[in-house]
């Protein structure tokens, strides 16, 4: 009996040894071959009937790519700097998007050309990057970059004070003074390129009555909200688009707070005694809304006090909230905001008030027709009167009430080299270094969802991608201006619908393959062509590809 268990143990041990031996050190060999540039690739929709903005992307020669658009796009170059449109190697894409390749290859350690390579991602704890030694440009100042996260600003500030992290994102408004008073710390304010708004869906009673919407617009003391709940650097919104964006705040400024006039309007609408409704929000911190539950309670209290509107607060799960509000299915008021993807007025106005967006109910032709007209004009000065007209229509029709442009900040140790607070929240840490040591620890609000940003929308994820992938252009550190990255220059045709980009030569990807025009075409095929085998992301919603280029190609009919 005893002997038998001994044999059993020996057997198990030897089996174990065999298994261990068979799993001897795995080499760094990549499971795919490099494909040298020969045949130029092309992504061609054939025509523009599918409704999208991109007609074709083609490799002209090894280092030239041509984009043919269906219409003039004032934001083309700005979009090219957006990390969602970062370029991946064609070979890796073909391997990583295959169904049998584990999704982790694609989602957790994608290959790019950026100054950092993903080294280790311990779920729930930290994400570590290592300097990419074959980087084409100036190598990263710091050898190791670590992302950590905590959803609570107080905890982030505490870690910064303790010196366990070198920089943090979004310190709480209350901590601004604490940080400035501390000689070991510094605060970097981020320009307010965002808007927080209270939305109403005009297909539900009583918000179908413009008087009710105007009453809400006048009955909310927005100054009080910004003064009490927003950090310094924030401002009360005079228009939907922040003034820092060209043509953002043309036209008349928003209504002044006037509860008496608001009540009169309600009375005209037959609701002198107020009404009951709901106030929806998601408990997610964004630059435009730093303290969500507090602001929601404040608005609830103001609605009751100023307008006798009894709003029941409903907290929704983030995904469901975006889904329901975006489809115009929320029957009350809801709190949402927008942060700039790229610094152009179309990114604010056209997205929200365009004909295709049902989030405020039925879109108003007074607004969207003017916007379409304005977007076709290249010269901002020439477009100004049209934007003034659109802004005035928004004020008149009140699809939503713009409340604030939220200032936010990042905080760093005082000895930090090149502190950053990018207006687009795309900090590029290759240009920064901590005071001492060779590890830069950065603490943000949340863990990235994945690092395959082509199919992500979450800002915390995009910041991670900014370190590892690059687009044809990049945003200058701490600025919204563009500088060439993987392209040396992109030039437009006369009518601004054909862009030809000369690519940088001698660029290596993290996997050792060389960068050429086919990588660009493959990347856009992955993102835009719904019928391509490469079109396999994380959620497969491809929101930014679908929205910034208006539509995906070859979408199967439902």
């Amino acid at each position, binding site marked *: 009996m005893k002997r038998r268990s001994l044999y059993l143990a020996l057997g198990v041990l030897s089996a174990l040894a065999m298994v261990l031996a068979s799993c001897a050190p795995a080499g760094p060999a990549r499971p795919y071959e490099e494909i040298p540039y020969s045949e130029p690739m092309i992504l061609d929709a054939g025509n523009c009937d599918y409704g999208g903005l991109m007609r074709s992307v083609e490799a002209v020669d090894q280092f030239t790519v041509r984009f043919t658009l269906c219409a003039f796009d004032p934001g083309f170059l700005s979009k090219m700097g957006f990390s969602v449109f970062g370029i991946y190697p064609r070979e890796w894409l073909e391997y990583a998007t295959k169904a049998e390749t584990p999704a982790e290859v694609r989602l957790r350690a994608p290959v790019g050309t950026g100054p950092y390579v993903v080294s280790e991602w311990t779920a729930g704890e930290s994400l570590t990057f290592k300097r990419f030694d074959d980087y084409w440009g100036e190598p990263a100042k710091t050898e190791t970059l670590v992302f950590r996260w905590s959803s*609570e*600003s*107080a*905890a982030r*500030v*505490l870690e910064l004070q303790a010196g366990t992290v070198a920089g943090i994102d979004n310190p*709480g408004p*209350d*901590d601004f003074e604490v940080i400035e008073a501390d000689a070991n710390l510094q605060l970097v304010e981020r320009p307010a390129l965002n808007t927080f708004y209270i939305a109403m869906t005009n297909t539900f009673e009583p918000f179908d009555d413009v008087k009710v919407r105007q009453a809400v617009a006048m009955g909310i003391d927005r100054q*009080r909200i910004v003064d*009490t*709940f927003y950090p310094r650097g924030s401002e009360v919104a005079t228009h939907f688009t922040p003034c820092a964006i060209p043509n953002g705040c043309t036209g008349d400024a928003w209504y002044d707070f006037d509860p008496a006039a608001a009540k009169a309007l309600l009375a005209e609408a037959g609701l002198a005694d107020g009404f009951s409704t709901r106030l929806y929000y998601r*408990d997610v911190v964004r630059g435009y809304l730093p*303290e969500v*539950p*507090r602001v*929601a*309670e*404040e608005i*609830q*209290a*103001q609605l009751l*006090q100023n307008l006798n509107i009894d709003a*029941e*607060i*409903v*907290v929704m799960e983030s995904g469901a909230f975006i889904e329901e509000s975006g489809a115009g299915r929320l029957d009350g008021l809801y709190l949402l905001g927008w942060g700039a993807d790229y610094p152009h007025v179309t990114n604010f106005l056209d997205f929200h008030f365009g004909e295709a967006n049902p989030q405020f109910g039925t879109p108003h032709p007074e607004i969207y027709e003017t916007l379409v007209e304005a977007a076709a004009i290249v010269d901002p000065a020439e477009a100004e009167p049209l934007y003034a007209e659109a802004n005035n229509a928004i004020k008149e029709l009140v699809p939503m009430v713009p409340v604030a442009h939220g200032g936010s900040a990042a905080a760093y140790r005082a000895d930090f080299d090149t502190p950053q607070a990018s207006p687009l929240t795309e900090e590029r840490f290759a240009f920064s270094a901590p005071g001492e040591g060779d590890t830069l620890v950065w603490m943000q609000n949340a863990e990235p969802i994945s690092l395959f940003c082509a199919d992500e929308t979450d800002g915390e994820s995009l910041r991670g991608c900014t370190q590892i992938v690059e687009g044809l252009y990049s945003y200058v550190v701490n600025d919204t201006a563009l500088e060439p990255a993987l392209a040396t220059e992109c030039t437009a045709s006369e009518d601004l619908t054909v862009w030809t980009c000369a690519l940088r030569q001698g660029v290596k990807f993290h996997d050792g393959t060389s960068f050429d025009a086919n990588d660009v075409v493959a990347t856009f095929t992955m993102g835009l062509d719904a019928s391509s085998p490469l079109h396999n992301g994380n959620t497969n919603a491809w929101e930014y590809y679908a929205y910034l280029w208006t539509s995906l190609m070859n979408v199967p009919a439902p």
Partner: protein
Amino acid sequence: MTADATAPGLRLLPAEELTGKPVSLWRTAWRRLFQRRSALLGMAILGALVVVAVTAPWIAPYDPYQVLIGVEAVDDRDPPCIHLLGCPADRPQHLMGIDSNVRDLFSRVLYGAQYSLIIGVTSVSFAIVVGTLLGALAGYLGGWVEDLIMRVMDVLLAFPALLLAIAIVAVLGPGLINALIAIGIVSIPVYARVVRASVLSVKETDFVAASRALGAGMGTILFRSVLPNALTPLIVQGTLGIATAILDAAALSFLGLGAQPPTPEWGSMLGKDRNQVFTAPHLVFFPGLGIMLTVLGFNLLGDGLRDALDPRLGREGTKLGEA
């Protein structure tokens, strides 16, 4: 034992013996209860809480929902300002400070007592009613009904109570009422088991057999003979159960699944401002203290009741929770 705690007992006992009446179980229980300092303390705490809850509209210095921006010179999250403790007299007095939405925290904490007490009592009452029915059915009918009911109870007990409550609220949707239902559901098995055990213990007695022979229906037997027998353990379990229910409800609200803003419920007040614990600890401290005191009150009373009502545990010094 202190003299005043034993005094009523000493007076009562001879009086009953003089009249020659049998000493009632309830009387004895009351006497035992009043002899226990811990139970007295529990009753005192609960009494005070009930008084606070009932009189909150009169004793609260402010409306718990009133935003004080522009009304008084106070800032959000101001620490407590108590004139007696040296806060300048020209500043408005706020015993527990100002909350995140510039409201008087003291008034909100006072109103919070209402919610905690109501939550505890209603969810446990719900659990007792359902649990008693199920337990009585299982014990009385036996057979597959009993098997089915008790296995379901086993499954419910196999989950940590709070996790199961979270899952149920996730199904029902967040909100105070749904949190109450969830906590009620997870508490059912305890009562079902207690009642079933009592039913089993009296089912075969001559007394019940006699009732049955006399043609008494099932309902009559259950309500006349069986349930009174289960009353003692139910009261004890119920009181202790209220303590647990309040803790769990506060935990649900803390996680954002229970009471929704602006309801001044302690758990949700605490949960909403938990990020501020390092900068404005008063926002977390006072609501938490409220929860702790309420739970402590029910625990002390429950322990005292157990000692007083259960003569089998009657020997001195062998009870849980005697301080």
